């Protein structure tokens, strides 16, 4: 294979040879000897290589060969300073990689819009009130969150929905849905647990989605009398239905009810809640939640008293959000069964822009993501400062080379190109590495993110746009500072630089380091902030993980069973649970078998107002519907009275065990024997349990333990074991298989695993902050080391003179140390207020518990940085003190 520029080369050779041979022939004809003719011909022709060189300059391919030269030369220069090169490439890779990963997360959570036509017209319909609305609804299902003084909630009644939908016809399409639920499905003999969401018939019309195959749901489907149909997501279809388009029209069983598959959703559509993985959409009135034997939802759907569905709306492009809110407020307020008791408790519609989807992931992750983003930009600044510094150091070191080249006639443009090429090479290598770093970080984040048990799943793949954005910033830095030496070369006088020799000294060269010193200062002060943040968040997580749960957390095994979905009914369900309790209790190694409606430590759960007579205002309390041995299985001690007995529990006796903090909040003097009211039930308090956490390590609400309902469709089983819990696993599985072969286990975890899952947000945060801290520390050390070793290397002759004149090694070392540590300390001092300010913000955002100012943490961060700075400065200082004056002076 011959390249075009090689062809030019050989052609030129042939051409020259032809010319010379012709000349030689001519001279031979004139009677010269061959040798004389050859000599004369060469003389007449001139220097062959020189001419070739000139021709090469004229060649169309000259730029390419010159780039080749630049790259080769650049490579050689990079290998001459391997420390700087490696440090710069690593700084680039880590800076770009980490920022890209965070941007990807931010994009997935905050910025990615729903894959539907004009998502900007989608809104989430919520309501807000200052006080809890009294008497407007009996029961509710949905989520709420505080926003300043207002309470915001997302649940509505059927009546509200219908009135709003009718009133807004033509101006907005208002559609309803309920939160998704896990259900057992079976298709062509294959069983799978899937996440099913019930939606109104106009749901997909509001989203304006087009089916991938078949059809989507329509109004006629959302009718209890209609033939049951569902649509499935592309993902579910690919994973569980064999990716075959003939599934449309076929039957799928969901919780033992047959549905016909009407269609498949388009591939990109993953749901309306970021991170949620809904597999199947069913008509609201035929969704699994409503079809249950004694479904609260079904009862709720026919009254106006229960507020149970969530709303999403697509407004017409000409209807503004304010207009929409006013339009919705009217039908909303006229749909209530009763008038609100207080003006503060009157709910009003609140519209929330939903182009990015709805849901809590945005609320819980939104602010942390911004803070992570701020932190990562600081890391990026530190990384950029490093790159700038390293390239500056290299520029100074190469001043002599540049001066030489300029004085030999190298044009500035050519010089610029050389340095540009070198910077580009650095940037390209760093950039290539950063893709790998970003990919690894994304993978790690996915593993740290909540998933599965509450339906969260983010697709995090290093995003091209994020990568491009970060790469731009970093590469720009590299190029800018990489070109600096060439820029300097165009304005410095070559002769002093040449004369100065290897080591320049004096004030002129000191001033030269000013930009580099400022960069180190910035690095160190940001380093204080980042290291402080990393210590705070990791210790916060550590504290959370090791916090007293109120129960014995070792030797606990948890799993869910959903027998109701296989067609078990009242008596059968009851028998199933009784058998289960009995047989599990007989498994060797199992000490106690607890049954509960709410899975402990999973987040969420149930809460009700617990009241006592004479006090109209109840105490909001978490409810554990649990069997008699639940407390002993969990390991929560009874401190007064007794536990609920098995007979009471199985007969659904009106008894309750309440936690000690509930006793306190209710102000009960003698709790045992007292009567409390929970949702219209009048219950006798038989015992008081010690304070224990309910669903999260970060919260501890008061808890009421009411008897388990043995006719429930599903339950969480809590096993207290005497041996490591996983050793009992196969025996437990055998017991369940004996009861029913087709019953799938859902989420088997030990309590330790379960707890760590609820701390995903804190874990992710702590992990990311921790790695930012380490990253910042490494970058700071590299920056300081780079600067100090270069300044001392440049000052070798000066140091040689000092030593020759009688300065002791200690003096020299002290001077270098003072200079380096002075710089580091200035940065540390600047960093302290910065860190305090950041901690303040984190506390305001509730990412950290409010506490005393973290002086110890700050001191630790400053200490760590100072120690690292010392290490960074020590080696250049030692090198300076071991300078041999004779060698140094001769070299200068």
């Amino acid at each position, binding site marked *: 294979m011959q390249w075009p520029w090689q062809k030019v080369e050989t052609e030129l050779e042939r051409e020259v040879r032809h010319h010379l041979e012709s000349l030689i022939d001519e001279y031979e004809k004139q009677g010269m000897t061959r040798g004389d003719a050859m000599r004369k011909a060469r003389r007449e022709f001139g220097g062959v290589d020189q001419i070739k060189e000139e021709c090469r*300059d004229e060649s169309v391919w000259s730029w390419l060969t010159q780039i080749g030269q630049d790259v080769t030369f650049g490579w050689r220069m990079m290998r001459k300073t391997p420390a700087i090169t490696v440090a710069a490439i690593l700084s680039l890779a880590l800076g770009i990689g980490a920022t890209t990963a965070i941007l990807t997360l931010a994009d997935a959570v905050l910025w990615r819009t729903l894959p539907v036509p004009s998502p900007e017209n989608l809104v989430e319909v919520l309501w807000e009130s200052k006080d809890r609305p009294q008497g407007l609804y009996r029961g509710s299902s949905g989520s709420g969150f505080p926003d300043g003084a207002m309470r915001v909630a997302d649940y509505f009644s059927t009546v509200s929905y219908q009135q709003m939908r009718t009133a807004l016809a033509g101006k907005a399409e208002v559609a309803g849905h309920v939160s998704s639920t896990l259900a057992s499905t079976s298709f062509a003999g294959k069983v799978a647990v899937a996440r099913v969401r019930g939606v109104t018939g106009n749901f997909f019309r509001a989203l304006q989605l087009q089916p991938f195959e078949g059809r989507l749901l329509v109004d006629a489907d959302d009718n209890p009398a209609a033939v049951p149909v569902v649509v499935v997501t592309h993902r579910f279809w690919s994973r569980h239905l064999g990716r075959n388009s003939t599934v449309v029209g076929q039957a799928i069983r969901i919780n033992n009810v047959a549905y016909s598959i009407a269609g498949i959703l388009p591939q990109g559509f993953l749901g309306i809640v970021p991170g949620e993985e809904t597999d199947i959409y069913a008509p609201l009135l035929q969704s699994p939640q409503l079809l249950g034997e004694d479904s609260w939802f079904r009862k709720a759907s026919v009254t106006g008293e229960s507020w149970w569905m969530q709303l999403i709306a697509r407004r017409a492009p000409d209807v503004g959000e304010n207009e929409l809110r006013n339009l919705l407020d009217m039908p909303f307020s006229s749909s209530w069964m009763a008038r609100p008791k207080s003006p503060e408790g009157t709910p009003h519609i609140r519209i929330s822009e939903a182009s990015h989807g709805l849901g809590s992931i945005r609320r819980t992750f939104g602010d942390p993501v911004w803070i992570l983003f701020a932190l990562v930009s600081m890391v990026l600044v530190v990384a950029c400062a490093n790159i700038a510094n390293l390239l500056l150091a290299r520029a100074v070191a190469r001043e002599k080379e540049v001066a030489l080249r300029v004085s030999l006639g190298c044009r500035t443009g050519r010089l610029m190109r050389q340095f540009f090429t070198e910077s580009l090479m650095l940037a390209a290598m760093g950039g290539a590495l950063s893709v790998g770093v970003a990919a690894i970080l994304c993978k790690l984040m996915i593993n740290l993110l909540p998933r599965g048990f509450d339906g969260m799943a983010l697709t995090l793949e290093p995003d091209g746009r994020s990568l491009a954005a970060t790469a731009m910033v970093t590469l720009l830095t590299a190029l800018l500072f990489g070109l600096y030496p060439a820029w300097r070369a165009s304005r410095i006088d070559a002769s002093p630089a040449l004369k100065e020799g290897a080591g320049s000294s004096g004030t002129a060269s000191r001033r030269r380091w000013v930009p580099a010193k400022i960069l180190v200062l910035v690095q160190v002060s940001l380093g204080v902030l980042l290291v402080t943040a990393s210590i705070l968040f990791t210790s916060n997580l550590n504290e959370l993980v090791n916090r007293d749960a109120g129960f014995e957390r070792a030797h606990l095994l948890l799993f869910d069973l959903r027998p109701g979905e296989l067609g078990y009914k009242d008596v059968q369900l009851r028998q199933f649970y009784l058998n289960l309790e009995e047989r599990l209790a007989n498994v060797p190694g199992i000490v106690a078998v607890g049954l509960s409606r709410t899975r402990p430590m999973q987040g969420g759960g149930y809460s009700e107002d617990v009241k006592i007579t004479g006090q109209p205002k109840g105490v909001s309390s978490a409810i554990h519907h649990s069997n008699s041995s639940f407390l002993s299985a969990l390991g929560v001690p009874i401190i007064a009275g007794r536990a609920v007995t098995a007979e009471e529990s199985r007969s659904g006796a009106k008894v309750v065990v309440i936690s000690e903090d509930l006793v306190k909040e209710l102000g009960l003097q003698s709790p045992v024997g007292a009567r409390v009211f929970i949702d219209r039930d009048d219950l006798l308090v038989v015992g008081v349990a010690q304070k224990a956490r309910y669903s999260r390590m970060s919260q501890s609400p008061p808890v009421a333990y009411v008897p388990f309902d043995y006719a429930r469709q599903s339950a969480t089983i809590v096993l207290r074991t005497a041996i490591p819990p996983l050793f009992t696993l196969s025996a437990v599985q055998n017991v369940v298989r004996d009861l029913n072969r087709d019953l799938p286990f859902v989420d088997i975890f030990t309590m330790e695993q379960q707890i760590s899952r609820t701390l995903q947000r804190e874990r992710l945060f702590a992990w990311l902050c921790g790695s930012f801290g380490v990253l910042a520390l490494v970058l700071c050390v590299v920056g300081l080391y780079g600067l100090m070793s270069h300044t001392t290397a440049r000052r070798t002759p000066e140091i040689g003179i000092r030593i020759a004149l009688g300065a002791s090694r200690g003096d020299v070392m002290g001077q270098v140390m003072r200079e380096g540590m002075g710089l580091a300390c200035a940065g540390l001092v600047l960093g302290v207020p910065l860190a305090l300010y950041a901690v303040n913000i984190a506390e305001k955002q509730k990412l950290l518990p409010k506490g005393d100012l973290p002086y110890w943490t700050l001191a630790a961060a400053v200490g760590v940085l100072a120690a690292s700075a010392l290490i960074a400065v020590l080696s250049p200082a030692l090198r300076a003190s071991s300078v041999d004056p004779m060698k140094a002076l001769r070299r200068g």
Partner: protein
Amino acid sequence: MTAKKSDLLQGTLDLLVLKTLMPGPLHGYGIAQKILLTSKQVLDVQQGSLYPALHRLEKKGLVSSEWREAESGRMAKFYALTRTGKKQLADELEEWARYASAINWVLEA
């Protein structure tokens, strides 16, 4: 790449080469001999310096080249004027004539 400064000699060499190629295609050796002959050996140019000029002209698109058998039986690279080359030659000859007459006018004044 910036174009090289066109000093008198270089400009002149380019012009000479173009003029030499006017009658028809010629290889490098032929061009050199012809220039030597026609300039009555006054112009003392090393023959090799012809090649950078030829390559430059080729890059500018004023001449084109192809490999052919020369009268000696060897393969040689023949250069020929392109259309733009011919136009350029005409322009430069005119320019040269004006320049020369201006010089003449000054010298004889």
